[in-house]
């Protein structure tokens, strides 16, 4: 970024600079957990949180047939029509919850990896974790396995891949740069195995696998939502606790090494949590694109360098992105439902490009 001798001389330039008004960090405490959050982050987070709730409520009202919000709430409280209550509880609520959780998990995972390795192209899709899930799931789909086993198998695939990457990276410690290059190598192998499967099997089965690979919320139920929620209840607090150490790790590998074995432990735990978040999301909905790679950038363009607060903002943005995308996926070409992963980029990219064009705060 260029440094002007007198930045204030150009008001257009000055107005977009971070820190033009002294930022007073607030300390948010919740259940023994405290986060320092700038006012800007807090404001953006609140706005996005409202958007998440609004989008989720709206999504409950649409589907094969529309149900007004009031009727929906009545049904939820047990005062409304039985069939509405059934649709709400059995079909729409789990789908919305899966959408929220998947967006949250992917975006936080991406933010963790980008925070740890200072490179804008790093995310769980780049370093092979999603590909690990994909190989297993695609193989099971083309060989005709029961669809019930696929989420668990995909989760195992992602976690095993993460451990392989970790083990291959470990040399008296984990250096971020090494992790990424090893991850890219592993990703290349796994992705080419997926390609191999897609050209070797009959096109009908491959077509189903492509649907999974595109990232879809079709037919997601409580069997998807419950493990997702349980996993997030463990991983999200862990991510927030660890995020306080991110700043030290961001100073670079050498500086972080100076901090000693504790930094190494934190780094390992962060990789574990980041990989776990990605694995959880991919198991529930397939590798939904764009969210993990790009949402953290959006969060940083709004609120500055990665902190615990920006991590939360990133997660909320991911959740709203996936829910809004699913609303569009269901309603844009009704009765045809698109996979949500096809829509996430279409919805998120214009906003990202708008921020990229408007802002000179491109963080790496």
């Amino acid at each position, binding site marked *: 970024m260029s440094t002007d001798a007198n930045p204030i001389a150009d008001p257009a330039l000055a107005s977009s600079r971070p820190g033009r008004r002294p930022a007073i960090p607030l300390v948010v405490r919740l259940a023994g957990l405290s986060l320092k959050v700038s006012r800007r982050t807090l404001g953006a987070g609140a706005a996005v949180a409202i958007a998440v709730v609004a989008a989720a409520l709206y999504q409950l009202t649409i589907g094969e047939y529309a149900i007004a919000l009031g009727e929906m709430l009545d049904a939820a409280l047990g005062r409304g029509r039985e069939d509405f209550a059934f649709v709400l509880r059995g079909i729409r609520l789990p789908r919305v919850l899966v959408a929220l959780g998947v967006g949250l998990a992917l975006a936080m995972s991406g933010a963790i990896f980008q925070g740890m390795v200072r490179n804008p192209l790093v995310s769980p899709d780049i370093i092979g974790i999603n590909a690990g899930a994909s190989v297993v799931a695609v193989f099971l789909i083309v060989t005709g396995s029961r669809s019930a086993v696929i989420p668990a198998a995909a989760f195992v695939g992602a976690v095993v891949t993460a451990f392989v990457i970790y083990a291959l990276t470990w040399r008296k410690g984990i250096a971020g740069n090494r992790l990424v*290059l090893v991850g890219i190598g592993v990703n290349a192998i796994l992705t080419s195995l997926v390609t191999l499967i897609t050209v070797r099997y009959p096109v009908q089965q491959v077509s189903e696998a492509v649907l999974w690979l595109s990232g879809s919320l079709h037919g997601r139920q409580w069997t998807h939502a419950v493990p997702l929620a349980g996993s997030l209840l463990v991983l999200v607090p862990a991510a927030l606790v660890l995020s306080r150490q991110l700043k030290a790790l961001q100073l670079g590998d050498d500086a972080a090494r100076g901090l000693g074995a504790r930094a190494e432990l934190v780094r390992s735990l962060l990789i574990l949590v980041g990989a776990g978040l990605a694995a959880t999301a991919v198991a529930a909905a397939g590798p939904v*694109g764009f969210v993990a790679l790009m949402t953290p950038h959006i969060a940083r363009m709004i609120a500055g360098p990665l902190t615990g607060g920006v991590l939360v903002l990133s997660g909320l943005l991911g959740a709203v992105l996936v829910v809004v995308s699913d609303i569009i996926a269901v309603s844009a070409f009704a009765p045809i439902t698109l996979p949500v992963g096809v829509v996430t980029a279409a919805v998120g990219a214009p906003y990202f490009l708008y921020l990229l064009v408007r802002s000179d705060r491109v963080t790496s």
Partner: protein
Amino acid sequence: MTATAQAPTGNLAEGSLTPSTRSGWRWAGLLLAIGVLLLTVAGSLRVGSVGLELGTVVDALVRPDMSLNEHIIVRGLRLPRTLVGVGVGAALAVAGGVMQGLTRNPLADPSILGINAGAAFAVVTAVFLLGVVSPFGYVWFAFGGAAGGAILVYVVASLGRGRATPVRLVLAGAVLTALFTSWITALLVLSQSTLDQVRFWLAGSLSGRDMEIFSIVLPFLLVGVVLALLIGKELNALSLGEDVARSLGQRIGLVRGVGATVVVLLAGGSVAAAGPIGFVGLAVPHIVRAAVGPDYRWILAYCAAVGPILVLVADTLGRVIAPPGEVQVGVITAIVGAPFLIQLARGRRVGGL
């Protein structure tokens, strides 16, 4: 070629080797790489569903007798395929090296700047809407899509207040790639027949490529490689940072423009000839850099020799590894090349990510 015996700039860090012995080793290494490349060319001409003796291959090249089946196989199938493989391998590796220098991002490769995705977008759309059926029909769509994708990325990165800095380029490339990919996925989910037709092309393959395809893309590849070798010195200065490069009297805009043209010519030409082959452009410059150091004049020259080795070895393996079918070259490049990259990352300090 700009890579003369002149002392490389970074020799302070190179220990006791004097600049001239260092340079001598590099020339020797380059000759060795070219020797290995010739061996892989011979292997690629000999190996396949019909194995051929080297003498037969030489006969077919020198004194072709079109009444012999073996000679028809060599001249009609293996020679064009091998030439396309050499061209594509050199193009991808050099394009990757140039991109890593231009963007100062070691994760940059031709698939990042929207080039492969742009090409795939154009081809899949052409198949879906216009019913184009053969790899010959794909060539110009792929090339147009590659160029269009690159231009779009550049325009997006240049809009607004900031200039097209490396970070902006990389981000714009990644986001437009995501957009193109989501469009492709939508078409493949909607249309099973499109999926059935393009999945082999999307895997990246040299199979069935003839002299006509080679002669279409050859001029693009030649111009691209020559231009790339001419800007090696400028990339060296740029890799020290923009401010340093500017203070050394570099015209950064010009270097960027030439570099971007190089990448479009090379990556566009190779995706037109062989489909999107990933990983070569990413991995080969890293592998080469570990051997010859940070001087881009040498890196690019080595890339032009080592890229084809990787692609030809992968293609030749793919022909014999799973008979009676073939495994696409794009699949094998990753499986063969990735362990090198992983070993490299494990073996030494990898700086500057």
